[in-house]
């Protein structure tokens, strides 16, 4: 599984890595010929939160070469500390050129090599060696794209920044939050404690067209599907969203799961928060 080299043009979105760094301390980077994925599949440690972020490599890299383990298993899975990658790419904000390579300098590294724009004639080069752990093939099955369950309600999200500031304030009052929505474009964020109940209502959000016709035909559009989740997990997810996405959908499986499906330009992010048990 060998050398792989990418030359990224200045349009690479390093905020992707900044976002990932906020969502997962340690994550898996999956490299395959077409796509790049950031995966968090932390069943126990994350309390069941999972994340799947996908980018089409051709949208970002001017040159991309990779070789996986074998032709059938043409992928490389690397575990790394997200903050390292985010910090390395942050240096690239004023880069003339950026190269990422998998190297072995006494231990496997993702070497990010950045040529900086410089006022003077001489170039400045920054190299970051990010230690990575190559994940053996037998563990790949735990790191596959999560299946999207059939949701009871699918709704477009309100402006994430607004949602974040509301949830931040609610966090002071309660450790759980109920998120509920219906097919009429209504979404509510509710907290209920002994002393106080607070609900924020979002209306006219719109619902995406339904994938499966049959299940939802019977559903009363006003009926709410709800999930009670750990408020910190929701907050962690919202904190990672610096920019408002192109498309943001929330899928709720009653009392089981909330699934956030975001699209930021060419990057898709899915985040699953299980119901609080």
């Amino acid at each position, binding site marked *: 599984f060998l050398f792989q080299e990418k030359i990224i043009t200045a349009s690479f979105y390093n905020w992707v890595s900044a976002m990932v760094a906020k969502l997962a301390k340690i994550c898996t980077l999956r490299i395959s010929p077409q796509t790049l994925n950031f995966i968090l599949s932390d069943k126990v440690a994350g309390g069941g939160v999972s994340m799947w972020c996908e980018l089409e490599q051709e949208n970002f890299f001017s040159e991309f070469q990779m070789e996986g383990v074998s032709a059938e298993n043409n992928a490389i899975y690397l575990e790394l*500390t997200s903050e*390292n990658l985010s*910090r*390395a790419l942050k*240096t690239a904000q004023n880069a003339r050129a950026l190269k990422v390579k998998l190297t072995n*300098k*006494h*231990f496997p*590294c993702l070497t990010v090599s950045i040529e900086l724009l*410089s006022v*003077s*004639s*001489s*170039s*400045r*080069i*920054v*190299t*970051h*060696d*990010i*230690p990575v752990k190559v994940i053996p093939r037998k563990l790949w099955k735990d790191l596959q794209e999560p299946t999207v369950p059939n949701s009871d309600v699918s709704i477009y999200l309100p402006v994430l920044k607004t949602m974040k500031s509301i949830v931040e304030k609610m966090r002071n009052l309660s450790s759980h939050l109920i998120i509920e929505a219906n097919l009429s474009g209504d979404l509510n964020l509710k907290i209920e404690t002994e002393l106080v109940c607070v609900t924020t209502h979002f209306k006219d959000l719109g619902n995406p067209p339904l994938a499966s016709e049959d299940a939802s035909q019977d559903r009363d559009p006003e009926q709410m599907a709800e999930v009670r989740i750990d408020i910190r997990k929701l907050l962690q997810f919202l904190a990672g969203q610096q920019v408002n996405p192109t498309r943001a959908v929330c899928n709720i499986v009653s009392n089981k799961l909330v699934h956030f499906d975001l699209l930021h330009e060419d990057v898709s992010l899915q985040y699953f928060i299980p119901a609080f048990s």
Partner: protein
Amino acid sequence: MKCLVTGGNVKVLGKAVHSLSRIGEELYLEPLEDGLSLRTVNSSRSAYACFLFAPLFFQQYQAAAPGQEALRCKILMKSFLAAFRSLAMVEKSVEKCCISLNGRSSRLVVQLHCRYGVRKTHNLSFQDCESLQAIFDPALCSHVLRAPARVLGEAVLPFPPALAEVTLGIGCGRRVILRSYQEEEADSSVRAMVTEMSIGEEDFQQLQAQEGAAITFCLKEFRGLLSFAESANLSLSIHFDAPGRPAIFAVKDILLDGHFVLATMSESDLHSPAPHRLVPPLQAHSTPHLDDFANDDIDSYMIAMETTVDSEGSRAGPSIPLSPGLRPPCSPGPYSEDNDAEPSTEPGTPPPKKFRSLFFGSILAPAHSPPGPSPVLAEDSEGEG
């Protein structure tokens, strides 16, 4: 002693104190004919910092009351810094700063005259003090680099703020290379990221060093001087020699000069394997003019302390020899003089990191030579006295 600082210089003074506070916890204030000197040293004696403000820096400068000897004092850095805590406030509202010390009162008075007639007075207690002098001479160093502070500021930008040590050296093509230095952990499950920055020779105003020359020093301490130099828009020069010899970082302009002298890791402290080394180890040169410092024996590094002679003629205790193997200055946690880092003899374990302490000596008046083993005293080459 009495001096008055006005206008923008108050902020410069404040910035200098902030820089010094990154190094040590005690500030040695000494009014000299050449100007006011502010010095500090860290607890493990591996970093020394000094700013000298020329008389012209002040609107009024009086080193000593006529007929009297100049007094020097040592104060808690924290207390002195409190007067300049918020540089933004200092810049915005302080019009003048008056620092005075007289023998009768036992207080150092720092008085800030602010806008709207507001006056803030800090009365700081001080201790009679030792004369703190580090012995170093930039001219004796074989390698020099000089660049605008901005270039060096940009050079350290990719490194995490928490990084303790960095290696600076000259690589192929006379490029200046800065690389994060990480101690190799025996437990290699969590490895740290290694960052390297390479800058072309053209960015430097002066580069007198061979390819292969390199030193490893505490980045956190260096940042103290760097931030001062950036704010004052000065050039910073780095004078260094073989690994293990102290490196001298200096800034200078007509009104002030600043020196930070930092210990560097010696050959035996730097761990192998070679690929992690920035450049091949520097061959030990025998340079005659370094004879004074040729003896690396830690016992020859000493601090000879002396009090000022006040009217009662009291004296400080005997000179304090340094204990070898002091905890590295950059390790987190409270400074401690406990020598609990025994050299490890297990194969494959790197030796504990040790910054050799710098040498200090004192300007000895003949009547006050300290007792104890004979110190190595080189001429004080700073020319102060």
